[in-house]
């Protein structure tokens, strides 16, 4: 595959790994958090950690929109979908996410709910147009990357006067969450490890640019390297972070120059700003309430806001008390340190947020790396 294989070149990877090993100071350790689940997945899928020296460790952050969606929001979506007039459109990766009492959208569908898997917001619009008697609700999730397509869908729905189309908005924001990991008293109370730098997300940064990270790089003296999702991108970003740490720098650097600019996609940002506003607070599964960490529809679009249109109620639902997802998302624990991991909690029967999506830290470790706990791993 032209333009893809070049970013997965094993020989180049080896050379960068050699440079990291040469630069990493053996007298100290380096803990870097890759915020984004896309990076977590790449690290696991390509076995990237096998190429890093022992004292360079990756912490898998909370940047997986499926993982951080609280149980209460899933419960609310299931309750909505069970109403006879509702057609709920969702991306496939939400289908198996567990709600309360072992429920899920997949099981709700088996029980008769009209839930349809779509590949884009435009599929949902098409359904609303073709079936005017149905109340079509799009289950919108994702970071800054997927908010613009949701905004676009809303714009089209308004232009076409599709009054039967609404959005259950669960869009969340990256910089607020990173900041929350670093400064929230709740998070501090729960314990953190010292983070020496961040790998900034790829697709999110295409939309928002690198500028939004500048504040906290300065404020929290944290180096940030925005990186692409290919394994060579990630390992190069790690090298750039090691250099920054060694030099005592805390800058925002852009590894992903083939796609990311300082100010991002301003047209997409404008679309989002047109239709959405900040929520004062929103629960992230595993992190708790994050101030200004999510979006909702502006009040003038209430007609298309499923939460208002159907008076949806989100009730708080607790994770299993033995679940360590919160600690894992903050880097305090590793998946294998959780007593549920691989016993009752697997990708087939996920209990915690980190196991529900392939981009979650636990699911990635289970699927690609769980034999690292065994002596014979990858000799």
């Amino acid at each position, binding site marked *: 595959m032209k333009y*893809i294989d070049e970013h*997965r070149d*094993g020989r180049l*990877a080896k050379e960068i790994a050699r440079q990291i090993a040469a630069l990493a100071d053996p007298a100290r350790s380096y803990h870097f958090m890759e915020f984004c689940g896309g990076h977590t997945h790449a690290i696991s899928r*390509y076995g990237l950690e096998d190429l890093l020296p022992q004292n360079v460790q990756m912490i898998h952050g909370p940047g997986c929109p499926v993982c951080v969606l609280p149980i209460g929001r899933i419960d609310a979506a299931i309750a909505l979908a069970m109403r006879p007039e509702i057609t709920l459109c969702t991306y496939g990766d939400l289908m198996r996410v567990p709600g309360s009492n072992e429920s899920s959208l*997949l099981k709700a569908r088996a029980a008769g709910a009209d839930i349809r898997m779509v590949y884009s917001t435009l599929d949902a619009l098409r359904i609303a147009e073709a079936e005017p008697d149905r109340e079509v609700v799009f289950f919108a999730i994702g970071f800054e990357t997927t908010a613009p397509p949701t905004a676009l869908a809303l714009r089209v729905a308004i232009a076409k006067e599709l009054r039967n189309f609404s959005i259950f908005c669960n869009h969340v924001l990256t910089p607020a969450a990173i900041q929350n990991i670093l400064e929230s008293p709740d998070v501090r109370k729960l314990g953190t490890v010292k983070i020496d730098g961040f790998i900034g997300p790829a697709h999110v940064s295409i939309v928002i640019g690198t500028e939004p990270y500048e504040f906290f790089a300065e404020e929290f003296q944290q180096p940030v390297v925005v990186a692409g999702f290919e394994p060579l991108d990630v390992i190069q970003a790690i090298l750039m972070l090691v250099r920054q740490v060694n030099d005592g720098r805390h800058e925002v650097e852009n590894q992903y120059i083939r796609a990311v600019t300082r100010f991002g996609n301003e047209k997409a940002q404008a679309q989002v700003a047109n239709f959405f506003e900040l929520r004062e607070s929103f629960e992230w599964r595993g992190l708790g309430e994050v101030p200004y960490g999510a979006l909702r529809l502006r009040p003038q679009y209430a007609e298309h806001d499923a939460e208002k249109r159907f008076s949806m109620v989100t009730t708080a639902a607790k994770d299993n008390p033995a679940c360590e997802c919160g600690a894992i998302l903050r880097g305090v624990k590793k998946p294998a340190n959780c007593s549920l991991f691989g016993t*009752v909690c697997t990708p087939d029967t996920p209990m915690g947020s980190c196991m529900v999506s392939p981009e979650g830290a636990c699911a990635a470790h*289970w699927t690609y790396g769980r*034999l690292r706990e065994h002596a014979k791993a990858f000799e």
Partner: protein
Amino acid sequence: MIKANRRKLDLKNGRVDLSHGAGGRAMGQLIEDIFHKAFDNEWLRAGNDQSAFMVPGGRMVMTTDGYVVSPLFFPGGTIGSLAVYGTINDIAMAGAVPLYLSASFIIEEGFPLTDLDRIAETMGDASRETGVPIITGDTKVVERGKADGVFISTAGVGMVPAGLDLRSDAARPGDVVIVSGSIGDHGVAVMSKRENLEFDTGIVSDSAALHGLVAGMVEAAGAAIRLMRDPTRGGLAATLNEIANASKVGFRIDEEAIPIKPEVAAACEFLGLDPLNVANEGKLVAVVAPEAADAMLAVMRAHPLGREAALVGHVVADDDCFVQMATSFGGGRIVDWLSGEQLPRIC
């Protein structure tokens, strides 16, 4: 069959969902806890895609298979040709010579006769081309909305050559793993024609009958073949995990050695799929004694359906039955069953 701890099926309030048909752990549990429990016998317990039993003339194998692929017509085949080839392949994976097939049709009210005719024609062509006749059948029509166009279920029988006994628990440390050609073609070809997902590609399904290739392998080095599987639903990843669990061994495979067409790799890339999980309908995986590896590869490469045969790894001792892969990037990872479904109704 699968070790991970799991919750019991909720027989009182639970319902069948799509993950129970996806070829992964959920389906394994459904089969074990419902069908094996009800039918229990030594043949089912062996967990093969076919079963062998003694008849006066030798060892006979029997298999049955259902076809629900959507769309019914896809690049490189139809539900009809797929049904013929797929059933033949289940027989061939026992090293057997396929003899006869049956076919039953469940047809939805309103289904166009011209489509039914085309399906039957392609089935007839496949049957004549492979030399395996369809000698009995059944036809049912259900009300509109109670099926999706047409579903086909088949059965097939064949005879195993004397002296050959392939078993899913026969893989031994040191054995080599050979795949007969590029993986993922069928799944990507079908997906490219799915509603809402249509994309332009030159990829056609690899749907084909493998009994000719198998006959050559058996003739040349039958004693060296430990077992064969066709990696259909769940792809190469599911097949290797099934063998690993049945034989209580592990695998080490090499990502760079696995043949994948660039178009298939590219389609998987933008669909977010792993080619190792994508279905094949004209490929086989053979576990072979190491000393016969070169001879087996030569025989396979001499056959049109095995031209790209490749040695992709070997069997290792591993009580945990992990399938490990050296990535082309230079690291290592597990190759696991897929959780849940990747895309339903691929075959």
